[in-house]
């Protein structure tokens, strides 16, 4: 009776196993299962180039209408997806159990998110963006207009299709290959709080752009958003390394703009194909942790000449410190090579700050002398670099003063005093002998 039941359980377990293995983990940070929420399932075909590029990179895409009542990202406390793509700018509320809180919790538990808004984006999408530090133009009908760097087309339009080429300067985020062609963008702009260090402009508008309702007349008041303050596409890396991409345009993901040729107004260069595909693909690689994900391991330290890690150092000890840093290449961990990793020997403030030298195989090491101060120190590696996940390691290590028998026993400068004491002792001895027996 029991045996078949057990075999059945085992079978079930085995069928679950690959799912567990392929899911997001610290060891394999690339996402696997992605939920795509669409306003309309027709987007599946109109944006198929974007989706197929994801699929070809090994992602499992799960398409749902945004108001599908069966939407659930979480079951029994476990997230069923590693990433979420919201191509549903006009959805007022999600179907099923997902709501804004759910999306934010999803992000806060370390998962990634791509949000595309559009003109007349719903408050739901606006609020999600605001929670991530991105403020869309409050005027619901406003779009980004640019009369000097629009994309030239056959019909003279209202200059809302923008050819933007002001990318973020980061090979980590946008890949090594330079994006030659401008990116076609049609949608709403947003602004970022300059005090917010986590959100970055991946694609910003030109200085001649502004955000307004193209059908209404320009008022005498300046528009609320204008110039380079407008961000078209922004990326956020949260403290827990969750990555978010927020775009003001749904169209920029579409097959039509992927394939379209582009000529920026005032420029003679005409490109056969817009930069959209390259831009979106590279950005999505970054968002889904195929690039720029670091891990540190094997933080070690020991006294010079020893290999064991001590429980405590003594002041003025010489020590060696090493840490290994690897970067995720999308399929495996490769050594991260950089010349600017530093270690701090820290007790309320850094007493030692040294740049680590690397052996190009991921190992970073240095050696230094423990300062002449005792206390509870920390080895701290704080590595925050644009595009990379931030590394913040610390390891506590107490530093003790000399033991009572570790001081020098005889000091040359004190020899007069030694002489004084011994001569005094000898003198006292002789005096006692003479005094006692000289009668």
């Amino acid at each position, binding site marked *: 009776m029991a045996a078949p039941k057990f075999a059945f359980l085992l079978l079930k377990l085995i069928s679950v196993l690959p799912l567990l293995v392929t899911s997001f983990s610290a060891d394999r940070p690339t996402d696997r299962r992605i939920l795509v929420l669409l306003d309309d399932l027709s987007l599946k075909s109109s944006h198929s180039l974007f989706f197929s590029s994801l699929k070809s990179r090994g992602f499992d895409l799960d398409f749902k209408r945004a108001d599908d009542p069966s939407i659930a990202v979480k079951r029994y406390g476990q997230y069923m997806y590693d990433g979420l793509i919201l191509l549903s700018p006009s959805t007022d509320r999600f179907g099923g159990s997902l709501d804004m809180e759910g999306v934010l919790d999803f992000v806060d538990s370390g998962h990634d998110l791509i949000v595309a808004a559009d003109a007349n984006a719903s408050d739901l999408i606006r609020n999600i963006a605001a929670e991530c530090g991105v403020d869309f133009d409050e005027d619901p009908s406003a779009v980004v207009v640019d009369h000097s760097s629009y994309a030239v087309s056959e019909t003279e339009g209202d200059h809302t299709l923008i050819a933007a080429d002001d990318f973020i300067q980061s090979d980590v985020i946008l890949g090594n290959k330079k994006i030659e062609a401008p990116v076609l963008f049609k949608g709403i702009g947003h602004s970022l709080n300059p005090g917010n260090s986590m959100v970055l402009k991946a694609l910003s508008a030109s200085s001649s752009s502004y955000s307004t309702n193209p059908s209404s007349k320009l008022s005498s008041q300046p528009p609320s958003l204008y110039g380079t303050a407008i961000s078209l596409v922004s990326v956020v890396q949260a403290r827990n390394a969750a990555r978010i991409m927020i775009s003001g345009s749904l169209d920029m993901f579409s097959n039509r703009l992927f394939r379209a040729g582009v000529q920026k107004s005032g420029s003679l260069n005409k490109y056969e194909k817009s930069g959209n595909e390259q831009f979106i693909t590279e950005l999505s690689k970054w968002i889904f942790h195929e690039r720029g994900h670091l891990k540190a391991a094997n933080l070690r330290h020991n006294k010079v000449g020893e290999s064991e890690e001590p429980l*405590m150092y003594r002041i003025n000890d010489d020590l060696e410190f090493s840490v290994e840093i690897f970067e995720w290449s999308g399929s495996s961990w490769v050594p991260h090579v950089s010349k600017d990793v530093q270690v701090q020997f820290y007790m309320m403030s850094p007493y030692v700050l040294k740049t680590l030298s690397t052996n190009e195989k991921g190992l970073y090491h240095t050696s230094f002398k423990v300062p002449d101060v005792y206390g509870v120190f920390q080895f701290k590696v704080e590595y925050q670099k644009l595009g990379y996940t931030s590394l913040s390691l610390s390891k506590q290590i*107490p530093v003790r003063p000399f033991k009572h028998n570790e001081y020098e026993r005889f000091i040359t400068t004190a020899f007069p005093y030694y002489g004084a004491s011994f001569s005094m002792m000898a003198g006292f001895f002789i005096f006692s002998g003479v005094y006692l027996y000289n009668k």
Partner: protein
Amino acid sequence: MATQETSQSATFCHAFGNVLSFAVLLLIGVMAFSIRLFSVIKYESVIHEFDPYFNYRVTQFLTKSGVYDFWNWFDDRTWYPLGRVIGGTVYPGLTLTAGTLWRILNSMNIPLSVETVCVFTAPVFSAFASWATYLLTKEIKGAGAGLTAAALLAMVPSYISRSVAGSYDNEAVAIFALIFTFYLYIKTLNTGSLFYATLNAIAYFYMVCSWGGYTFIINLIPMHVLLCIVTGRYSPRLYIAYAPLVVLGTLLAALVPVVGFNAVMTSEHFASFLVFIIIHVVALVYYIKGILSPQMFKVAVTLVVSVGMVVCFAVLAVLIALVASSPTKGWSGRSLSLLDPTYASKYIPIIASVSEHQPPTWPSYFMDINVLAFLVPAGIIACFLPLSDASSFAVLYIVTSVYFSGVMVRLMLVLAPAACIMSGIALSEAFDVFTRSIKFHLVGATQSPQDNAGDTTKVTQNDVKHEKSEVTIKERSSRKSKKKDKENIERPSLVSRVEKRLLVLPLETSVIAVFLLVLLGAFYVVHCVWAAAEAYSAPSIVLTSRSHDGLHVFDDFREAYAWLSHNTEVDDKVASWWDYGYQTTAMANRTVIVDNNTWNNTHIATVGTAMSSPEKAAWDIFNSLDVKYVLVVFGGFVGYPSDDINKFLWMVRIGGGVFPHIKEPDYLRDGQYRIDSQATPTMLNCLMYKLSYFRFVETDGRGFDRVRNTEIGKKHFKLTHFEEVFTTHHWMVRIYKLKSPRNRIRGKTKKSKLKSGTSISSKRSGTRKKNPWQ
């Protein structure tokens, strides 16, 4: 004289008296031990209060790691991140004593735990202290006074308060060491024996090991020596009693790591060296006086005095310049506040904030030494009849200790032995007179009173009889042994004593007086037992309260510490006001920022500033110190008055002393400290208020604080940077965790909120507000 008469009965009485006094001393020891067991019987066998927990932890370390590791111990679990070199900053006497006791017991296969040994160290040493008192008083005024004093000391409430079972503090062994050092000093002074002088230096060394109060000895003894010299009582015995003590004692004291070079460099020790010089000069003068003729001596004196004055002034000027160049004039803060009682409150709030450093109130004298306060003057008078070297020391001891006890309430402890000695002398002398009168009337009618020898034996017999009838007062003993001492030491005083013996009071007066004295003693005993049982036995980590529905036990402290030790990581740091530092390290085994060893004022001020700051600023401070948990003690729910809100003004004061942006007037409304609706906004927004009263209104619906007897000012508020993780059963200890920083940073929330409020249902905006922090 009795010994000259080798009659059978006298020898028998002599032996009988010795055995009896031995038995009485044994019983006194048993009483001293057992009267301190109320805390174990009424509560349990636990370490009490704050400092004992540290001593207990150190003892544990000592028994586990040995003496050398203890000596070199750098503790990384306190004063994070500075750490503390415990081996070099602790008085090791108590710890070594208890550790040795434990080792001896274990080697005898008596498997007691370290905690048990620590709990019972104080009672054991109080028995030793009463025996030392017997010895000291015997040297001063004879065995009768010695037994009386020992019995009084065994149960004096002031000493009980510091030495009940579980009160494992330095004072527990230090009082014994103090009395024993004085005994050996007087013994040396009386005998002139170099052997006792050496023992005296060793006893002094033990005292230095045990307690910072050793400076009292090293100042009192020079004072006495100076007094003897000034009053013309210089003798070679005095020299032998003093000079070896200074030399050996200072050398030995310098061996204790915590004292080290302080033994020769601080002003506390200055008096002893000055007197050391003076006694040598005096000795030289006496020597020269002995070998020169009077005329020559006069010439020599004028010569030496004129030269000596010049040298003295030069040396003095150099010394004054040296001392004046240091900011505190070479005195430690605690010592300065002894000399100038207002010093601490003016300059060092951290010393003034400790309740035991406050001056005592008058009732506390009656509470702590009870009837002894009335007997002391009589004892002083008795010491002057006649004045010997030893009795002048006793007088000096009581006078100085009365002054010091008036400055600092904890120094009542030093007064107690002096008061016991004086009262012992007074009672003993009084009984002496009264019983002699009674005996004279009953027996003396037939016998000649002039027969001194016969008289003495009779007194002895009479006293012994008296003893049997009086159970409560066991101070009677052989007059003979006392007499023998007197003959050896104070031959001149014998004459006056003999004359005094002839003073006889009427029989009725004597009987009534004896009766009244016994009544006084009985009253004292009743008071002492009451104090031991009710007032001084509470361990303060377990509280009890009696109400109409029975006894309530508040075990919140241990509940909180147990929670910390079970639910937090080993290396997590816990911030609290320094009072709870020792307990947290000892009971919860977690790293603390500050503790009761208040060696770093800035660090304490940092914690005080954090507690007085608004949430965000406090979070920043705590985060910079790697603090994970914040612990506050809150008594408003059950009415426990010594909670953090009542200590809060000290936090503000100490914090403001270092960080001037914290200003005490901001927390006071018209100079009044209040937490009700009249409180200042700074007060209502500071971290301590918020952590204490968070969710408090949920208990009774209106937030009534039972300690301050008022409704709190701000009842409904949320914490943004801290989250409550644990609150004990009676709300006495509340533990908060620092929230980690936000995972995301929101955009311009106000605008989007306004927007969502206008267009989206209110339900959504309500949920949005809920989770600002991840």
